[in-house]
């Protein structure tokens, strides 16, 4: 596929909508899952309280991610805006909370 036709393809609205939808549904879920895990591990509270707080916020985070995916200027921005924070949160979750570091 030549560079020219690739550009045309990515500029097509249908591809843009499909890409944003994927970013919203799967990227958004990944972001929410990473955020929930990181919060459950890092919130300075008893484990049960940290878990429930993280879960209370998780669906809000998911919703905001979906809205972002469709509100932002381009599909590329939608992906970056969702995956960047997801990666940071995944790294925090991988570190495993304050106790794991001490």
């Amino acid at each position: 596929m030549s560079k020219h036709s690739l550009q045309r393809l990515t500029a097509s609205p249908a591809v843009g909508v499909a890409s944003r939808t994927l970013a919203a549904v799967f990227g958004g879920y990944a972001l929410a899952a990473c955020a929930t895990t990181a919060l459950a591990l890092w919130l300075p509270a008893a484990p049960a309280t940290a878990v429930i707080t993280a879960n209370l916020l998780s669906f809000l985070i998911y919703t905001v991610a979906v809205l972002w995916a469709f509100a932002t200027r381009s599909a590329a921005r939608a992906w970056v805006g969702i995956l960047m924070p997801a990666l940071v949160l995944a790294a925090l979750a991988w570190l495993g909370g304050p106790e794991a570091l001490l």
Partner: protein
Amino acid sequence: MKAGLRQSMAWLHTWSGLLLGWLLLAMFVTGTSAYFREEISLWMAPELHHSQPSPDTPALAWAALNAKAPDAKSWDIQLPEARSPVAQLRWQPDTPQAEEGGRRRGEQAVMDAGTGELLSPRASRGGDFLYRFHFELYGVPRIWARWLICVATMFMLVAIVSGVITHKKIFKDFFTFRPGKGQRSWLDSHNATAVLALPFHFMITYSGLLIFMVMLMPWGMNAAYEDGWRGFFQDVFPREEPAAEGGAAMPMVDIAPLVARARETFDQPVRRISVDWPNRDNAVIRVSTAKDPHITDQRRGGNPTLVFNGGTGELLETRPGDEAVPGAFRVYNLLVNLHLARFADPTVRWLFFLFGVGGTAMVATGMLLWVSKRTQQLRGKAPGAALRLVNGLNIASLTGLLGALAAYFAANRLLPVELAARESWEIRVFFLTWLLALGHALLRPGRRGWIEQLAAITVLWAALPLLNVATTDSHLFSATAWRTGALAGFDVVCLLMAATGGYALWRVVRKQPVRGRGPLPQRRTVEDGA
């Protein structure tokens, strides 16, 4: 960028709403009925209607269980209360088979609270079928159905938030109603029903997701606890395990003095009695009362309880049931309790029911708006296949479902009591009626379809109270129905449903079909995005 944001949100609102709107409609209708799940179940069991609570009910239940299952592993007695005039007896036989497959399946019986006679109501799933349908459908593997329902709920959450962003003049528009103007009127009623109960819609959607958080979002608890959600729940709801073995046989004390003592201690009526190892020397009796519910209370347990030694009647422990709940759990409990209306007195229950009706109307008007807008854009040309399909599905999911509901209730009265697998036949009648309505709606996806189905549901709902007169002695003209408010209330709601159907029918019949109208009056820029 502001107009751009609203435009993209309007697009998102339209399509996230349409794609799962039909499922949401079915969830709203059956879920709204679930606020009166116990009342529906009672209505669907006429054999229980004559039971009347008495001060002797605990002693009668005690005698019934002593006769029926004296050497069971455990007993559980639910005493009658405002929503249910019978006593529910459950017991767990002390046999290895009872534990088979890790699932504890006890036995149960329903007792007439006044006479102590064990009743045998007709086989029916009652309100439980509708309640279960609203979060796990029927006949679909449970896990798939729950995921599908949760995806629809997530779409609803997105539709709510994007709808609010789309809607610039949210409060001004709330007071705007332009009746008899086709698309504009549907838009106004969609806005009104959405904004009126917006906190309810948001709460019911968000808490719906929270109820399934273990399935949807287990990653936090999996990371924080070694054995995942099991560890989390053991931490939150520590469970006391009963003694593993029953002791030597030993008769128990009378229950009446223990019930009186619990009522005096907590100044509340006794609701529940449970016994571990009845009629053994290690029997433990727990007598729980009602309490003034806090909206942030834990979902399970927590009622004021006295614990007694079963053989001697000695008080072992007093549990006042006022454990402090940490802040985050209060928020969680608040949302979940609101969803389940656990704390609700009758007035609040009716209010929630009306909110549920409002939610149904919001989803329905949104879907009608979608069709109305595209029909007007045709300027009188014949609608295409997609529009006909959407219109047909709208008819089937609104009037079709309401008709199926009425047929479900009618089947309860008409199917022979001794029919094998009777409860499944009631459910089959429900789905066959709905399927019939779907076929009809797809064949006549327009004005005629609406008229015929509205006429059908008006007749069906109006017939229910009459059917009740013909087949039971707890109908609207009987003292029994008015003594137990749920029974009279059910029939009155049926009449209201018929009246609503009749009114809608009259409106559709009176209105002339749309033929090639001129352009819409430009009263304001189109920002509804439908």
